[in-house]
């Protein structure tokens, strides 16, 4: 039996997707950059719910908006999850939350697993996931795998692609 990392449901070996929560199950063993393993804490069996940290109170910041400068596309995410940024690639089981393929990510040097945004308490962090062309925060290159505080109004650059951060 294999266990869904996201909702803990058990499946026979070789199952590719969890039919309970839709998580991709074949991404196993692929270190910490695995996009689906940690991100889906909002879907759990009832007995596990107590272990989930309480969701932020509504008067605090709850959503993250990313504006992709060149394409003008705006993506919005609730801040309850970690947000993976990269390019979708089914063959290597990369399903980022923000897929920059449509914005010309490949040409602009965005890796499939490029960066992720996480929340710890009230603070947001951005972390480069060992991308080929690097993640830049307000012009400064980040050390791979070292989370760096992120604030509303910051500018992120992935390769040559620029994203504007807005916390609402």
């Amino acid at each position, binding site marked *: 039996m294999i266990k869904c990392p996201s909702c803990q449901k058990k499946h026979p*070996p*070789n*199952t590719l997707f969890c*039919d309970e*929560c*839709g998580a991709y199950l074949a991404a196993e063993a692929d270190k910490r950059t695995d996009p689906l393993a940690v991100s889906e804490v909002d879907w759990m069996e009832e007995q596990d719910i107590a272990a989930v940290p309480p969701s932020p109170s509504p008067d605090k910041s709850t959503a993250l908006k990313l504006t992709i400068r060149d394409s003008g596309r705006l993506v919005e995410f609730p801040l309850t999850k970690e947000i993976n940024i990269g390019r*979708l690639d089914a063959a290597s089981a990369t399903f*980022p939350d*923000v897929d920059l393929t449509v914005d010309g990510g490949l040409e602009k040097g965005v*890796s499939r697993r490029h960066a992720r945004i996480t929340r710890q308490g009230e603070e947001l962090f951005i972390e480069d996931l060992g991308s080929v062309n690097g993640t830049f925060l307000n012009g400064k290159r980040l050390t791979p795998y070292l989370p760096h505080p992120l604030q509303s109004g910051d500018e992120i650059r992935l390769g040559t692609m620029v994203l504007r951060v807005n916390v609402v």
Partner: protein
Amino acid sequence: MRVMTTETDYYAVLGVSQSATAQEIKKAYRTLVQRFHPDAVQEDATVSEQFYRVQEAYEVLGDPEKRAEYDRQLGKDELAGEPAIDLQVTLSHRSLSCLDEDQVFYALMEITPSPHVEVRRLPLNLCLVLDRSTSMQGLRLQRVKEATHYIIDYLDDEDILSLVTFSDRAEVVLSGQHLQDRVRVKAQVSAIRSSGGTEIFQGLQSGLIELERVRSPDMVNHLILLTDGQTYGDEEKCLLAADRASRNQIGISTMGIGQDWNDKLLDEIALRSGGTSAYIDSAAKVTSFFRDRIHSLVNVFARELRYTLDLGEEVRLKDSFLVSPYIARLQEREGGFHLGQLSSDAPTVVLLECIISPKLPGRHRLFQLELVGDVPMLGRQSERVKREVEVRFAPTRELEETVPPRIVSALGKLAIFRMQEKTMSELERGQVEQASQRLETMATRLLNIGELELAKAALLEAGRLARSGHLSPEGRKKIRYGTRSLSLLPKEVSGD
């Protein structure tokens, strides 16, 4: 020159292959002519006969036009025994490991017209059944009229069109006929006025009568029903009409516009008759829906397509889904799993999810697949294609092999479709909280694959559900029909 037949193989006479260039043919001809020329050899009956055969062969193969015609003829003769339907089966794993527990494997069936068949368009026997109830007034009816005008222009002279409008009763606006005076027919469409309630059965019944009058097995007989409202009290009659249509090989495609119509009824009518159902969320899209439907109708290649599975020892079928042209759960009915029509411009794709019990090393039979369908343009009934599918069991766990991306991509879409199914059944059981959470997770999955609009709809409805305990009728339809038509087109796959 004799009447050209394919009894003589001209290529063999000249000793060249079918792919030989004009140059090679010329060269072969020259050599043979020199060898068999009556002047060069002694007068001999067989040699002289040979000389004329070479001449005859070269007359055809030496002329590009005649050669092309000859090749076509040759192709047709060879095709007589060839299957008209092409079936490709891809397994998720080329080999499985011997485990001491049950394991899953997936099989993708891709069905297309055989490349040898020259596809031609079948004439249509089409009936449009249009709702003209009061609620259609204004923009909706206007757009439906425009869409109908489009169809009138699109149809060929050999096609037959009939036109029925309905409210609480039905009127035949145009009785089934070849279109001669298109301007006049368009004027009749423009003159349609809205009034009254919605009784779908009235329209359906009149439409079917029109189609049955001119119905022929050499045509695509189809009814397109468009409505914007609930029908009251005649659901059962509608379903019986759909069954009758199916027996008469008439497909019914249903389209609901706005948010007040009964999606379950329209889905069931389409399912029973082998048609499709669709949700049109805004009046502006009516024409594009009509256009897509009519294009797929003129591209019908095979119909009554179905398959049966003969499972190997200790192999169980867990689920079977249609993944293209749209997503649907397939259920076994009389005659197997029904797939409806095969279009010549888009493959029909099915995904099987099976469980297999522990096996000893070696080759094991997984299943035998038999595909049956009618190919009207070749006049073939119950065309059959069979495939025996096996897999090798390796004694130890071998190197992880990658599952073909086509299968991963199809399963990714299916995973979302299944979440939608679960959400809806949870709602029916009143498990609101679970359904809301599931919708939220589904929104994330949709974002992952770049379906932004649908993700937004799912997120919105998750919130609404958590607050009010209900989905909006519009959101419900958006999610149901949206997850069903998640496209199969693979995303860009490339390295960093």
